[in-house]
């Protein structure tokens, strides 16, 4: 399970970085979203990957760590707000500069 999980995180991050370097606002926003997914999953995994244990507390002492779950929730909410802000800003940027390049101007060929 660890290998699969690590591979998923790696692919998500690599795709995110690739999209981020495309320098057009829409791919950049998608890239940021993918990176934030990867980061959220990573935070979640920091409570250790295990199956079939009690969610918070149990009598035999084996239970999932609740703190990373709380951290992930916080990170998701913040990431969601930030993504919404970037989308609005990207639209505003297209409106103000007539291009979707992140520099606000087309690069010269």
């Amino acid at each position, binding site marked *: 399970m660890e290998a699969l999980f690590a591979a998923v995180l790696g692919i998500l991050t690599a795709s995110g970085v690739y999209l*981020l370097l495309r320098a057009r*606002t829409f791919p*950049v926003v998608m890239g*940021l979203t993918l*990176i*934030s997914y*990867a*980061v*959220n999953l*990573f*935070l979640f*995994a*920091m*409570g*250790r990957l295990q199956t079939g244990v009690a969610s918070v507390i149990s009598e035999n002492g084996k239970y999932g760590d609740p*703190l*990373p779950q709380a*951290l992930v929730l*916080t*990170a998701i909410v*913040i990431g969601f*707000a*930030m993504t919404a*802000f*970037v989308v609005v*800003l*990207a639209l*505003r*940027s297209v409106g*103000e*500069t007539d291009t979707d390049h*992140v*520099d*606000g101007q087309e690069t010269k060929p």
Partner: protein
Amino acid sequence: MNHALILPIVLPMFVGSLLLFGARLSMPVKRIMSFSVVLVMLPLSFWLMAQASQGDLQVYALGNWQPPFGIILMLDRLSALMLVATAVLSFFALLYATRGDDERGRNFHALFQFQLMGIYGAFLTADLFNLFVFFEILLIASYSLLLHGGGPDRVRAGLHYVVMNLVGSAFFLIAVGVLYGITGTLNMADMAQRIAATSADQAPLIGAAGFLLLVVFGLKAAFLPLYFWLPRAYASATAPVAALFAIMTKVGLYSILRVFTLIFGDDAGTLANMADDWLWPLALLTIGLGAIGALAAKSLHGLIAYLVVVSVGTLLAGLAIGTPESVSAALYYLLHSTWVSGGLFLLADLVSRQRGVKTTELVQGPELQNPYILGSLFFIGAISIAGLPPLSGFIGKLLLLRSVEPGLQMAFMWPVVLIGGLITVIAFSRAGSTLFWRVGLSQLDSAELDYGRLWACVGLLVLSPALVGLAAPLLEYVHATVSQLHDLPLYYQIIQAGGGA
């Protein structure tokens, strides 16, 4: 438990939320509400500084959860110093804004309050994840404040700023995740103890997380490979926002100082003070490139923005040398550079208002209407930030230069700082002679000097001679601050005492 510790966070949050609900209130009402907060924060921050100067740590356990389980706020000498710097700067920035700049967007005052909440929170918290949350609060408020006033320039600069900081936030979360995964705690003091006790094979992973944190804080503090967003963003922001942003780079520096003295401090075994070797060359290169950027700047705003970069480099050099003398010199310089560069941003706006379409471009423009007042202020600000006697910049730089041991470090440090200062003087002489002397014969008819704005600017610049006058008690305070920072058992007591301070 001292409940005053939570006030710097709750007060702006409460008033900011009220202002959001009352977005349609009349401007005078909003101004009074917003201004009352910064007015209360002034005496409060000085009182907290007096409390902190007694030498104990003040701890506030949120929800009365015993540390290390809950989130705690912690006030030590360093946090109190940063609170004072913010309170004073925000007072004058808001005073300036209430003279008309706040009318260009409906939610300016609410955003200003949330920005303050984030900054105060970042200075007070003793929990690593909570630090992330406060970073996000201050960032999202700063994104909107940066765009305040609109226009393509601000949107362009804003997009870069937002995207870079979002990537930075992702790094921050990864670093926090790794540190939590290894140590099982988020409380900084607890984490420091556990890192001191971890086995050697964990050290590389912890070190990697530490360097990720350094990248994140470096992005906020804007030193060498990570400063490229700053000049454009600061130069395009509205004047009071740019002035407030003078404290934003210091949030990054504060975090570097906090994390790399406490978590990766003297007790961290092989990881102790690991950042210093990297910070040292980066600091010097930052000073050099910032000075060159200042010389090449095409506008007064751009010039001052590059001087912010130079001051970040100077501060970072102080932190990187790492002796008690150099760090306390850096803390003194931090107060000076925050207030004076804030004042200079306000002054640049005052000048640009009298130059019509030329604004702050460094080209020949119409004759200013108040060349003597603005020129004198410019002169004071320039010699202060360049580090010429008799103002505070000189004392800060002198202390910093004297703190270097003779040898290789001195051979690098002295020329870079002194030549950087010389280049600053040249850049300022060029800008000043263009703005005040190389003027046309005509004056603008419409421009006038607003005395409220002028006083806000004067207030910040006058702090430079004031810092000289108060140098003795202040230096005593910063020396005590540094020795407190290295007294790690004092911080460990938070965990053992159960937060009942």
